[in-house]
């Protein structure tokens, strides 16, 4: 390409072209990797599979014949690493599928424990409320939560917010990866309505949900009439359901 543009190629640089060897042993030319990296307490110890720098693997990639299928006898280290990876992943997936559901969190509603991952949420037609359904191996329950109750809670923890922090949230435009709360900027009219008490006869548009959508294993995104979209964790919705059911 460069030559076709009349640009002369002066030098070719081959990165990691060769290794200076001190003797027959195991070298870590790029450092110790993840072995010394500290992780938060909520993350389980990592299953680290170390793949060696390998001319055999490189040749297999170039030829298009996967080393796991050709299985050359001199590639014992490489094949052992691939085998370890297959075992760890298959064991991990089976463990996640059939392990104790409490690992994903439980919520107690009316004295019965329900799995948080079973929670489903929808808008009740004709009402400013959410219908939250929870399931367990022995039964199910449905709780109707006023939309104003949900809007008044911390989207991550489910704790009730103070009025000051609610007003601050409604007027801000932020997206934080930590709390996974996305608040899009409300319209000017909505902000005005939010910052001042609703007039008689007019609905508070900050408590009218217009759409709700599941977001992976994390929670539900609620789109509000005032233009804000907030993702509530399953824990927050479960906590709201538990609080309503005990009232």
């Amino acid at each position, binding site marked *: 390409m460069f030559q076709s543009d009349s640009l002369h190629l002066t030098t070719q640089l081959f990165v990691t072209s060769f290794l200076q060897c001190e003797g027959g042993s195991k070298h870590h030319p790029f450092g110790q990797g993840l072995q010394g*990296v500290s992780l938060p307490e909520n993350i389980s110890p990592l299953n680290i599979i170390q*793949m060696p*720098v390998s001319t055999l693997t490189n040749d297999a990639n170039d030829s298009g014949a996967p080393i796991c299928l050709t299985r050359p006898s001199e590639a014992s280290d490489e094949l052992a690493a691939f085998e370890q990876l297959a075992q760890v992943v298959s064991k991990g997936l089976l463990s996640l599928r059939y392990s104790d559901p409490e690992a994903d969190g439980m919520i107690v509603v009316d004295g019965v424990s329900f799995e948080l991952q079973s929670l489903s949420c929808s808008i009740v037609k004709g009402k400013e409320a959410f219908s939250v359904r929870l399931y367990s191996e022995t039964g199910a329950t449905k709780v109707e939560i006023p939309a104003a109750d949900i809007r008044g809670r911390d989207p991550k923890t489910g704790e009730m917010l103070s009025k000051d922090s609610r007003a601050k949230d409604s007027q801000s435009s932020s997206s934080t990866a930590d709390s996974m709360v996305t608040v899009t900027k409300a319209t000017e009219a909505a902000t005005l309505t939010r910052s001042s008490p609703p007039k008689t006869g007019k609905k508070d548009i900050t408590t009218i949900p217009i759409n709700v959508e599941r977001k992976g294993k994390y929670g539900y995104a609620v789109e509000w009439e005032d233009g804000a979209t907030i993702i509530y964790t399953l824990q927050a919705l479960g906590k709201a359901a538990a609080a309503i059911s005990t009232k």
Partner: protein
Amino acid sequence: MAGKVVTQLVKGTDWGDLDVLVLDLPPGTGDVQLAICQELQLSGAVAVTTPSKLATEDTRKGIEMFTSLGVPTIAVVENMSYFMVRVVARSLQWLVSI
């Protein structure tokens, strides 16, 4: 933009009756990863990295992000982790044959 394209690909494709769907994602913690975690209920993640400090720091952030979104990291593959020298030689060409 990238997130929307990925969402369209994932949700607009008739995948048929699958046992496992493996998604090979681009590096980092960008829109694609976030969109995938929010649009799908992933069973778990396998992180792939190299031993360099920059790569491991990115990997750590990725694992934390996936964990916060409810996706456990099943394994971490560390490519180019080590080089086993089986013969005593002054230098070895290890990746490129010219």
